[in-house]
């Protein structure tokens, strides 16, 4: 009895050489840029190709070049670098036991930061847990992010969420869910509401390629198609979903962007480590949405350079040091070299910037710690636990709150509650 069940192949396992030959590339500038009202079926090849702007020598080429001012590029570089430094610092902090959990976006900074710049401040963002660049680009103070990570007295979520599940109403960053993909149809519904109200703001959402397997991905694409919702739907294909290679999400010999035209919305496959390409693709999709031509599914081809989270050890399932072999490089390095090539940046300026940002992060961390940690006070009042289940507290929760208060009053004497 022999199995003929096909199981997707994984290019390289621990101990083997990294092998990225499966990644279908096209040269920078090779993919045409159609007008934003192009018919969906004419995006099939865009969904299979790879929109790239930066070429091998870090020059911007081709029709997708967004021609951004050097100042914009420098801001983008700064925010990507800040994201990376913030990530590194928080990772180390978790290792030291100061926070319970962390998720880095190492290697994927362009996906978030470039998109944030291509969208308008009024556009509503529905991030996944690996989009800290969105929060940083939108100007959420680092201290606020850190206080969330610490679940301390200034935690924007009042201690209710795991680290990394940030949010901001004024900056239009939707509360992150620990359940994968659920925010995707919500983003589409948000966009439908904008259309119903006749408002110009659009929505944008992000999920990992692994999460495209979830039902909500399908619902989102379908509703976006049916109602032509003004939304930009991003799939961050960083090749891995914890230990599971993207082939198990349907990525074998197929692009994730192809789901767009499959369902009837535009699709774009983009070099996710190319700040300019991500910016250009997002701009195109946002214009398309705002002009009433509907949604675009953008696949950002990138690589998860680090572990899935602080609970994960990728050396168990993939070769160490794959990142240097990743054919699309490092987004920070590529934008830096582009700016240097333009004469708008230099190694010394970069080193100074790094130093400045390290200091910024360190200062923020010091400040955040003064508002408490999970283990050291001050702490949020545990009675907060009973609030916001409903707008007004019903009697059974009032009773439970009283019970806890009595327990804590009594427990001052005894052991743990």
């Amino acid at each position, binding site marked *: 009895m022999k199995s003929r069940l096909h199981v997707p192949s994984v290019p390289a396992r621990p101990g083997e050489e990294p092998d990225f030959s499966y990644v279908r590339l096209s040269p920078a500038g090779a993919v045409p840029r159609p007008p934003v009202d192009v018919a969906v079926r004419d995006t099939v090849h865009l969904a299979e190709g790879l929109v790239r702007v930066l070429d091998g020598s870090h020059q911007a080429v081709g029709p997708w070049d967004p021609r951004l001012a050097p100042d914009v590029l420098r801001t983008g570089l700064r925010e990507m670098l800040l994201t990376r430094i913030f990530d590194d610092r928080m990772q180390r902090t978790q290792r030291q036991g100061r926070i319970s959990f962390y998720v880095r976006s190492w290697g994927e900074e362009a996906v978030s930061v470039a998109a944030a710049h291509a969208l308008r401040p009024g556009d*509503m963002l529905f991030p996944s847990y690996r989009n800290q660049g969105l929060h940083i680009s939108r100007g959420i103070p680092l201290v606020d992010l850190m206080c969330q990570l610490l679940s301390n007295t200034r935690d*924007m*979520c*009042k201690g*209710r*969420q795991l680290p990394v*599940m940030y*949010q901001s*109403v004024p900056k239009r960053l*939707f*509360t992150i*869910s620990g*359940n994968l993909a*659920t925010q*995707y*149809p*919500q*983003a*589409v*519904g*948000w*966009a*439908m*509401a*904008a*259309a*119903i*109200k006749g408002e110009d703001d659009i*929505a944008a959402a992000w999920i990992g390629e692994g999460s495209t397997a979830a*039902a*909500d991905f*399908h*619902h*989102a694409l*379908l*509703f976006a198609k*049916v*109602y032509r919702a003004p939304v930009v739907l991003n799939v961050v294909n960083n090749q891995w979903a914890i230990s599971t290679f993207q082939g198990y999400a349907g990525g074998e010999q197929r692009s994730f962007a192809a789901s767009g035209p499959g369902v009837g919305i535009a699709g774009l496959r983009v070099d996710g480590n190319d700040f300019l390409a991500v910016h250009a693709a997002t701009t195109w999709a946002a214009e398309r949405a705002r002009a009433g031509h509907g949604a675009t599914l953008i696949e950002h081809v990138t690589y998860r350079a680090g572990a899935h989270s602080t609970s994960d050890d990728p050396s168990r399932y993939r070769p160490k040091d794959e990142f240097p072999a990743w054919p699309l490089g490092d987004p920070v390095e590529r934008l830096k070299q582009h700016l240097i090539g333009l004469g708008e940046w230099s190694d010394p300026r970069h080193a100074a910037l790094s130093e400045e940002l390290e200091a910024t992060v360190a200062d923020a961390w010091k400040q955040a710690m003064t508002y408490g940690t999970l283990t050291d006070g001050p702490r949020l009042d545990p009675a907060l636990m009973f*609030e*916001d*289940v*409903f*707008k007004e507290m*019903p*009697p*059974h929760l009032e009773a439970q709150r009283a019970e806890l208060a009595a327990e804590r009053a009594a427990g001052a004497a005894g052991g743990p509650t």
Partner: protein
Amino acid sequence: MTAMNMVQALNSAMDVMLARDPAVIVLGEDVGYFGGVFRVTEGLQRKYGAHRVIDTPIAEGGIVGAAIGMGVNGLRPVAEIQFADYIYPAYDQIVSELARLRYRSAAEFTAPLTIRTPCGGGIRGGQTHSQSPEGVFAHVSGLKVVMPSNPYDAKGLLIAAIEDDDPVIFFEPKRIYNGPFDGDPEKPAESWAGHPMGEVPEGYYSVPIGQAAIARPGEAVTVITYGTMVHVCIAAAADLGLDAEVVDVRSMVPLDLDTLAASVEKTGRCLVVHEATRFGGYGAELIASIQERCFWCLEAPIRRVAGWDTPYPHAFEWEYFPGRARVRRALQALMQEAP
């Protein structure tokens, strides 16, 4: 005041709210042009337009997911799930997202959704058109759960649900859409006209969520129930000439335990009745809460009449349904019970 059946009363509630509040929208399968398979949304699309009364794809999870996003963006969606039996594909969005959005975001993001769905049996609908899944929602912190038993409450509670800033799962006992039902399938159908709760104001009013109602005052025994079974229980008590107090829960969450307990403290005996399957059902919570609160007043154990613990069996509907005779037997046994 006009005589309305429950379908008309629910329709009127949405009509009133669509007119009062531009943020209110209605969405669901077949709800638009067609007016819904039970006609509950009849005429609303014609009146308010296809952008406010929206036909959707057959994707219950998508309907709720999109409606949450709409709620976050300032709308007050009223989503219809065509049958409660089809609500499970939306369970994740309801449980993991809708119920917890306010909580996890420290009240910064909220989605004031109402999810209407016809439930219950007695219409020869077989296992996929007869279920009563209120129990699997009532257990989920963050959801309000409501079931009216008559047109007046239906309209008033639906308006309250739409105005409520918390998510409300609104169950509609479809067996009594067109008239009360005393449990006898052989009897000619009754109409709501003439029933006191079939008199419904045409305009705006609301019935507060969180309050039980005394459907029939009495002294001898307390019957706690809701939906279709309110009428069956009243009929069963009448059959026996028993002075039962029939309490209509109406709001399953939040539960008006005070009203329930007051009745049980008065009568000393209590029967809990629902159509949903018995094991682990909502009735278990009623019993658990009441015995915790009223133990020392109880003259007998609290008994349950409920759907048998099987899927809803098409051919045996009237042996399955917790009808009048079953309630009668339970009441008789309960009245005789002594140590």
